[in-house]
């Protein structure tokens, strides 16, 4: 017997492509853009969100029959805030430099709409295991976009990946730079992230025409 039934596997696979939280559901864009100038920061952010969403969805799913519906938003916020504090403290302890780069954006995971959106749409109405899978799946879908954006922005903007030069040395003019190639400083500034995501949406919807919006 397979580890996951087909229905359960879809919970993880759907958000990776055709139901991606960022490009289709329009959730969680805020933090997705600000920290993607470097691949490393994108990766750490993706892992943090996977942790918060997986655990958070399980907690909300366990509490779903106890929470009075009127105050559920506050309860959800408190659950997420607690998890985010854990992430923040761990980052400060083990990756201090990185936590400086991410700055307030770790805190902003609390108001990341993916998390609230999935709590509302899924964890409040489904069992523990399925909620867990849904959380992980959506966080992975979010992480994938983050990493794609981070990859292109760091590669084109600074010619490095994870801080390691891959295109040669821009000052000594080695590698690709010897042919006259220059880093595109435009990719480093924040608005470039929006344009990269716009292009990702363009590519995705050209490949899958069913996703095209009316207007």
């Amino acid at each position: 017997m397979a580890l996951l039934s087909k229905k359960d596997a879809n919970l993880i696979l759907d958000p990776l492509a055709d139901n991606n939280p960022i490009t289709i559901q329009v959730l969680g864009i805020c933090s997705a853009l600000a920290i993607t100038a470097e691949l490393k920061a994108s990766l750490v952010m993706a892992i943090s969100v996977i942790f918060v969403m997986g655990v958070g969805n399980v907690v909300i799913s366990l509490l779903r029959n106890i929470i009075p519906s009127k105050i559920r938003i506050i309860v959800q916020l408190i659950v997420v805030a607690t998890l985010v504090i854990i992430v923040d403290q761990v980052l400060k302890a083990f990756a201090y430099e990185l936590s400086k780069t991410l700055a307030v954006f770790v805190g902003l995971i609390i108001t990341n709409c993916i998390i609230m959106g999935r709590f509302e749409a899924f964890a409040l109405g489904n069992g523990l295991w399925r909620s867990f899978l849904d959380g992980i799946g959506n966080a992975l879908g979010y992480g994938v976009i983050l990493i794609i954006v981070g990859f292109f922005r760091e590669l084109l903007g600074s010619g490095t990946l994870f801080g390691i030069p891959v295109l040669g040395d821009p000052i000594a003019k080695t590698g690709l730079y010897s042919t006259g190639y220059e880093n595109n400083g435009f990719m480093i500034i924040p608005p470039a992230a929006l344009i990269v995501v716009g292009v990702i949406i363009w590519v995705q919807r050209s490949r899958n025409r069913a996703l095209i919006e009316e207007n």
Partner: protein
Amino acid sequence: MLEHVELFFKSIFIDNMVFAVFLGMCSYLAVSKKVSTAVGLGAAVIFVLGVTVPLNWLLDQYLLQEGALTWLGEEYASYDLSFLSFILFIATIATMVQLVEIVVEKFSPSLYNSLGIFLPLIAVNCAILGGSLFMQAREIPSLGLAVNYGISSGIGWFLAILAIAAIREKIRYSKVPPPLRGLGITFIITGLMGIGFQSFGGMLTGGDEAAAEEQAVEVPATQQVEATPETYAPEADKTTTNPEDQTTKAAAEAGEAVSYNDLVKS
């Protein structure tokens, strides 16, 4: 006085919530299909930011920072509770939003009808929590400046959502490639607007003479193009925030008055 003016313009244009730090993008994209709804949400954001940033500033100063508990007694002076700031800030915001909703519903049903649906959305708008977190990270020194910061970053967000809503209303008549329709083109336009807003970067940092002059010419022009109906907002707010740097209570009231004006106008 001068620092108020500086902070005001800095948070509207240079550190614009949407274009410089991408806060509140979710509601920015979801609620910007029509200008009228965008104005409603924008006004609500100005109001909530204007209330929650000063409140969280007080929390930060007298409860969370290292040594903030000194007023309780000498033995508490070494306590540092700043790791609790996320949870306290978000609790303040959620409570305030709920409170504002109840008060508005009670005293101004018409305002509630136009604003009501947006208020729950605001609790999870990253711009609100972001405002408080940036206030903490930038170590804003006084309550007056915190009020100013809250309101002016709200105005920045308001301008951004108004501009994109106006563009999206017009873009319906343009021939956009089908895969880019809707979300895709909105992203790219926002990116281009963000690049435009980058040009405000040199506005207050000084720079060399020529660059400063260029900026000074550029600012009013862009403002007119992007936000013609809204130019009253920064001006109205400037006049109210200026005389208030000493009396902090008056500042809070003035802040509310400004956002109520915006609401009524909308």
